[in-house]
């Protein structure tokens, strides 16, 4: 049972990292977007391992179902061409950027991996209950009612803003 969790984690982690790398390196924006969807899928699998069932579902519905569809829609609307091959456009600046990012990756990994090593080895026993829609909903609409209201206004402002910017004729 415990081994099964580890096997699933490794499988999801490999899919997530592979798809992330593919997303960053593809020339065609559509294949990038599809790899990003795969990545979101793998990460939502990891959420299930962490017993955050509701967030895992939301991830699939909102990220993969809404946000990425919007991305794909815009990519197709703009009818973009493939970018130049990455190897054709290598400059010193890009090499420095990659080296710096790899350094950052190392630093972050060391901070997170070794900083929290041995601190927590097991998922908290209440994790199963707090990840459920019932518990989250109660917290969200009782304790965090105010940020929910503001988030509603944020979405309204975003809709108005998107219309202002993207509508063809506006008066």
């Amino acid at each position, binding site marked *: 049972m415990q081994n099964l969790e580890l096997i699933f984690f490794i499988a999801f982690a490999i899919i997530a990292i592979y798809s992330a790398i593919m997303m960053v390196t593809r020339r065609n924006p559509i294949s990038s977007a599809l790899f990003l969807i795969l990545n979101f899928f793998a990460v939502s699998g990891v959420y299930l391992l*962490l017993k955050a069932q509701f967030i895992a579902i939301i991830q699939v519905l909102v990220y993969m179902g809404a946000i990425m569809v919007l991305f794909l829609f815009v990519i197709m609307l703009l009818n973009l061409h493939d970018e130049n091959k990455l190897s054709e456009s290598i400059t010193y600046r890009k090499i420095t950027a990659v080296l710096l990012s790899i350094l*950052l990756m190392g630093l972050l990994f060391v901070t*997170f991996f070794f900083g929290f090593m041995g601190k927590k080895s097991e998922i908290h026993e209440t994790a199963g209950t707090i990840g459920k829609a019932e518990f989250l909903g109660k917290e969200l609409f009782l304790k965090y009612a105010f940020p929910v209201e503001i988030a509603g206004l944020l979405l309204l402002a975003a809709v108005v803003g998107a219309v202002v*910017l*993207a509508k063809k004729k506006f008066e």
Partner: protein
Amino acid sequence: MVELNYYLGLSSILFAIGVIGVLVRRNAIIIFMSIELMFNSINLSLISFSSFLGDVTGQILVFFIIAVAAAEAAIGLAIIIALFRNKGTVNIDEINILKW
């Protein structure tokens, strides 16, 4: 047993790949997708903290991050469409004041 730091390690690797994407790619849409990848990795770390601490606040924050990501996607893509209409490109090398 999968410990907390394995989840965090995965999250930091994904975050860094996102950062590389932002710095290396020139297509505004792919840069934006890399930013979404960064947000996603942060969600992962917040949820792993939340589950291991047995505390719900992390998951609540993830809700709001997802809501904000949706709003930002709408705005960002609208900005990209507006630019494309005037300029006919989304490559940030061809954008005059966008050198970084």
